[in-house]
């Protein structure tokens, strides 16, 4: 207790200097918190959007489909499986998708396209596909007056093949049984622009796609959405255990993967990006360190004579070392406390309101309109650990110096 009191009073000894040091530490803390928070918050926003719009939180596929997609590697589209999946803890929505390639023909030209068979209503509820329409209307599962199924096409498909809503689209591909598939569809809507992810898509009602590829009652992925993309691992586990609990599906080689596995490369580059975003704050921490080191060194040098007396009367070196470290940690703790009080409301505001961008920016097909924060305990814990750790590191040199003093040499400097 006396030692803590001693450290505390030594910290208060040169108030002006303490305040300056504290300010730089608090500033470092707040800036690191906010950089961290906006960094994570923006990625959260992006991932939230990305998983919802494109890959879901969890996918159920045939074994190996994710690594090597083949037309034949399918999952059943079956009411009992649907029921079993939706029973899993945390599942909010689910929908099947059939995915393959085809060659599309317009009047004059042809173009390779990505075909997606979806359940129009479920798909729209889950991925809000209709929001991405740039022309025409959304897909229905019904055949039109000519007995043709409807199709949505990407903007590039529309342009290359010179197609507009109402036009006919021809798809040609090989079916699962090896036969040549060949079918006519009515374009009802166009998705996004030519730069969008959907630009080469042809979206068909699931039943139409199953007919086309000769995959009755089958698809390639069940897309599952839970409440939070950050809890995808837990959701995947729940889905797995739900499947394991049903004799029909327990032995089936179904693979349940969270989005981090489905989009492994994307996830990894994103994490690297995020680290890159932190470099600025590491530099900042470094600068703060230099300032703090300077202060502590100064306060140690000033007290050299005093340390000499302390050593003369029998203070062992490690005590003196501990004293300097303790002083620095007292300062660091104070800085973290003040930093937290300051950063918390700002972060709350960033999380709830955010800073609108003058123009939304696009990162790999995803749009940001706001800088947003993330309100979670680690946004404060990381800077706290960082400030503490660096303070400790910075204290080592002055503390070692003080510990090594010989009492007489030190006292001569009084």
């Amino acid at each position, binding site marked *: 207790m*006396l*030692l803590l*009191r*001693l450290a505390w*009073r*030594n910290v*208060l*000894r040169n108030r002006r200097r303490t305040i300056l040091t504290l300010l730089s530490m608090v500033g470092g803390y707040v800036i690191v918190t906010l950089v961290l928070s906006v960094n994570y918050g923006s990625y959260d926003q992006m991932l939230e959007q990305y998983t919802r719009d494109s890959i879901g939180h969890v996918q159920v596929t045939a074994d190996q489909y994710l690594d090597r997609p083949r037309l034949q590697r399918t999952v059943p589209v079956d009411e009992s499986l649907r029921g079993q999946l939706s029973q899993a803890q945390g599942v909010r929505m689910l929908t099947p998708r059939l995915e393959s390639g085809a060659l599309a023909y317009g009047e004059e030209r042809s173009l390779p396209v990505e075909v997606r068979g979806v359940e129009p209503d479920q798909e729209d509820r889950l991925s809000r596909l209709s929001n991405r329409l740039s022309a025409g209307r959304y897909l229905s599962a019904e055949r039109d007056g000519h007995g043709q199924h409807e199709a949505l096409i990407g903007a590039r498909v529309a342009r290359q093949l010179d197609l507009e809503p109402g036009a006919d689209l021809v798809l040609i591909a090989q079916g699962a049984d090896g036969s040549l598939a060949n079918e006519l569809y009515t374009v009802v809507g166009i998705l996004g622009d030519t730069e969008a992810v959907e630009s080469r898509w042809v979206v068909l009602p699931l039943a139409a796609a199953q007919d086309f590829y000769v995959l009755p009652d089958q698809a390639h992925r069940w897309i599952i959405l839970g409440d939070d993309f950050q809890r995808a691992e837990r959701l995947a586990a729940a889905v797995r255990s739900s499947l394991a609990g049903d004799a029909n599906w327990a032995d089936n080689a179904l693979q349940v993967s969270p989005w981090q596995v489905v989009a492994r490369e994307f996830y990894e580059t994103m994490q690297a990006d995020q680290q890159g975003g932190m470099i600025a704050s590491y530099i900042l921490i470094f600068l703060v360190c230099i300032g703090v080191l300077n202060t502590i060194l100064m306060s140690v040098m000033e007290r050299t*004579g*005093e340390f000499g*007396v*302390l*050593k*003369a*009367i*029998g*203070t*062992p*070196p490690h*005590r003196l070392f501990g004293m300097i470290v303790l002083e620095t940690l007292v300062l660091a703790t104070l800085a973290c406390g003040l930093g937290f009080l300051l950063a918390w409301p700002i972060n709350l505001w960033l999380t709830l309101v955010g800073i609108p961008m003058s123009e939304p920016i696009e990162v790999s097909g995803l749009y940001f309109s706001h800088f947003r924060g993330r309100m979670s305990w680690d946004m404060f814990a990381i800077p706290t650990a960082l400030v503490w750790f660096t303070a400790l590191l910075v204290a080592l040199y002055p503390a070692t110096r003080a510990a090594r003093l010989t*009492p*007489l040499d030190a*006292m001569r400097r*009084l």
Partner: protein
Amino acid sequence: MQASIQRKASADPTADVVFETRELSRHYGSGDTLVKALDQVSLTIAPREFTAIVGPSGSGKSTLLQLMGGLEAPTAGEVYLRGQAISAMSGRDLSDFRRDHIGFIFQAYNLIPVLTAAENCEYIMLLQGVPKAERQARVDSMLNRVGLSGKADRRPAQLSGGQQQRVAVARAMVSQPDIILADEPTANLDSQTGSDLLDMMHELNRREGMTFVFSTHDPMIMERASRLIQLRDGRIESDEVRA
């Protein structure tokens, strides 16, 4: 007198000798610039002695006290505390030795400025691992004995020079050392305050039997010593015991 003490010492080294130096030397520099700050000094200090070390500036008073207190290593010779040689001690042992056996009073700047008078005294007992309740009791009684009972909560800056030195005496005493070494404790005080401090130290010496060795320039202060060791050029010039 000195001879008789030495004879007793060899018969029973712990009974009548607290401190002993044998041919203690401390040299600084080398060749032309060699300074024999202390040159083969042998002396013994008996318990309850109140010894003044006097001599002109540069005669080696501080050097002798520093060697006795284990603050400096001798060039040659040996210092014994109750028969134990302190030059054999390693750094950590030496530090513990000073903490447990020696009370130091320096000319000035003895105290930690951010601690109160009481806390300054408590600090050394904290190092010794004395339990809190006992620390408190010993601090109270010690400050009382040096006449500072009302000033326990003052910081050094709020005390006069004489009061600060009293706190330093209290701090030196409170750890219950074998001997208190004081290097010119009154040098920064006016002569009246210096005499008062010495009277107080003498009182502690008589009543509680604490052994003191102090150096001084001041003839008024020398008067109060029960033994006067005179140094010149690092050697003992005279060693006289008064009644």
